[in-house]
């Protein structure tokens, strides 16, 4: 196939990529990423109209109840692996598509990591640079990593009513250091409510990974 400027052929190629993501066909998604590079295509468009479209469709399918968490995760992982091939090429040509940097963790004392991991995977799949610090992470360490990585967003998960107070601690430390305005703080986890978000003075909360992506995009005006 020769692409040139043929819009129709390009659109067809983007659709193939998007379908490969939705079909959770890892081999095909990676093969298409390599071809995009060989064919010297506009990689920003390939990511946005192909891979990005696929991952958005997966999100929609999950919201509709046709897809479930393992599929959401696998879609995100395939997306990440495709990005690992495309991003170095983009950087070489001086482009940067990082929508923002997110440091994410489950708070100290809490070992529930799965919700946080799904959110991390989906953010990463949607073009954010994600540093997932894992579970049972002290608030100080989360804040220090955010400073070090020059993060835009700090995401803190808590699954227990006894550990959710650690989420507030993040905001308190940021206030103490006088750097609260440099970061958007988002919180998540089963016990988290809107009123808790207000009480913490966090910037937002989401109750699903798909919502979390929407929330971060909104907070960063993306």
């Amino acid at each position: 196939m020769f692409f040139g400027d043929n819009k129709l052929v390009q659109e067809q190629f983007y659709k193939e990529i998007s379908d490969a993501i939705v079909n959770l066909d890892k081999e095909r998604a990676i093969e298409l990423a390599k071809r995009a590079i060989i064919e010297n295509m506009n990689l920003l468009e390939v990511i946005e109209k192909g891979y990005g479209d696929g991952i958005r469709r997966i999100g929609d399918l999950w919201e509709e109840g046709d897809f479930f968490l393992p599929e959401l995760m696998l879609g995100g992982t395939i997306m990440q692996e495709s990005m690992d091939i495309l991003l170095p090429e983009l950087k070489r040509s001086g482009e940067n598509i990082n929508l923002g940097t997110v440091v994410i963790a489950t708070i100290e004392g809490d070992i529930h990591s799965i919700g946080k991991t799904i959110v991390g995977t989906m953010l990463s799949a949607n073009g954010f640079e994600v540093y997932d610090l894992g579970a049972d992470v002290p608030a100080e360490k989360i804040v220090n990593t955010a400073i070090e990585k020059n993060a835009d967003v700090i995401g803190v998960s808590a699954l227990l009513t006894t550990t959710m107070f650690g989420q507030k601690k993040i905001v308190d430390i940021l206030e103490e250091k006088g750097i609260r305005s440099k970061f958007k703080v988002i919180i998540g986890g089963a016990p988290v409510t809107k009123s808790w978000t207000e009480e913490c003075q966090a910037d937002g909360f989401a109750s699903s990974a798909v919502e979390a992506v929407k929330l971060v995009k909104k907070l960063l005006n993306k």
Partner: protein
Amino acid sequence: MKVGILRPKIQVLDEEHKNKIYIEAKEILENLGIFLENENAKELFHNEGISHEGLRYFIPSDLVEKCLKTVPSEIKLYDREGKEHITLGEDNVHFDPGSAAILYFDETSGEIRNAIKEDFIRFSKVVEHLQYIEAQSTALIYQDVPKEAQDWHRLFIALTNCYKPVVTGTFRKESFTIMKDLLLSCRRSEDDLARKPLAIFDACPSPPLKWSDLTTQSLIDAAVSMIPSEFVSMPLAGASAPMSLIGSITQHCAECLAGVVIGQLTKTGAPLIWGGSPAILDMKQGTTPMGAIETMMINLGDVEMGKFLKMPTHAYMSLSDSKVPDTQAGFEAGMGALLAGLAGVNMVSGPGMLDFESTQSIEKLVIDNELIGMVKRLLQGIEDYGSPFAANILKDYEDKEELLSHPSTLKLFRKELFLAGPVIDRQSRDMWKASGAKSTRKRAKEEAFKLLSKGSLRPIDDRVAKELEDVALKHL
């Protein structure tokens, strides 16, 4: 159905008692006899030399035994288009909505009212979409057709709007021919209909020990055409049957054995289903609770007897006596469906039904579909995929510290899990609030409307629709 290590089961009778019940039921038929009004049946009995005193006919045990030998142990049902759909036999479990409700629970107004034709059209369309309700039934009796069309017209509406096989029945002897004509509209010939049954006719003996003129005629007409009949024997423990559960089970056995004899004398090999709708009498209200645990226990005993005699089985379970689809409706229907599943009842009539079999509700039907999905999952049991069962997967946990993205999770979750529909609330509290803090009923109602807006999954062929309509117009 593929079953895992063990098929989960329940039993309420042991072999010794099943034998005792069977022997006593035969003795009842031989010594007490059954009341028979129907002239055709009397002739069949006279031809066999069966003795009688007035309307009481005494059926010898050896005739019962002979007739049992020729009853098929399995019945395959086919859909409207003639495709094989479900098999009634062994421990297969299938559900159909409870039949012939006289009232409709209006999900929009919340009112319990007389049903109209439009209600049944909508009902049939919803049934078509419900995955776990594999057969339909002529579930509602509506008032806006002439009285003499009230039985057969439902079959016309059912077949027009839903492809699934139908559990139905007659209210007048004359209706059988019309109903058979409707069924023939969906088949090439009488023989084709006999080979590919599309409907089951309910035959309801009157307790105790009476086969009425109408129900006997239905049984005979169906047997002649090799159309399956389903006995709906309904002993009322403490009123028209003994108070003891085992006494009611024995009476049910006798009434059904009489049905076997009538059916097999009409035509050897006629397809028959061992079924019923027994109940206890509520000793305070004088009502017939279908949601009572003892009613369900009689059903379990009845079904065990059917299996003991190697016949396909039926029971009226998964219904409730509550007047609205509330908590009582949920737990009674849930217990009934679960027990019916564990007992391996081949055809369970009940979903959607409220108020002692008198009211049908689309809301409840949609909720029941979900609980039946769960029951069916239970019946598949626990699967052995080969050992080690966990060790290798746990080794992989170290990699990512989660197993959600593990290949085995993706491979198995759709197989291992019953994926609950939107009627079952498993949202986080925030999402539940954000989506309107809806009750089960509200969610069920919305789901019903959503299904109705989807249109037919398998629309009827124009030619068949026209033929059905021609039959209907001819008799209206």
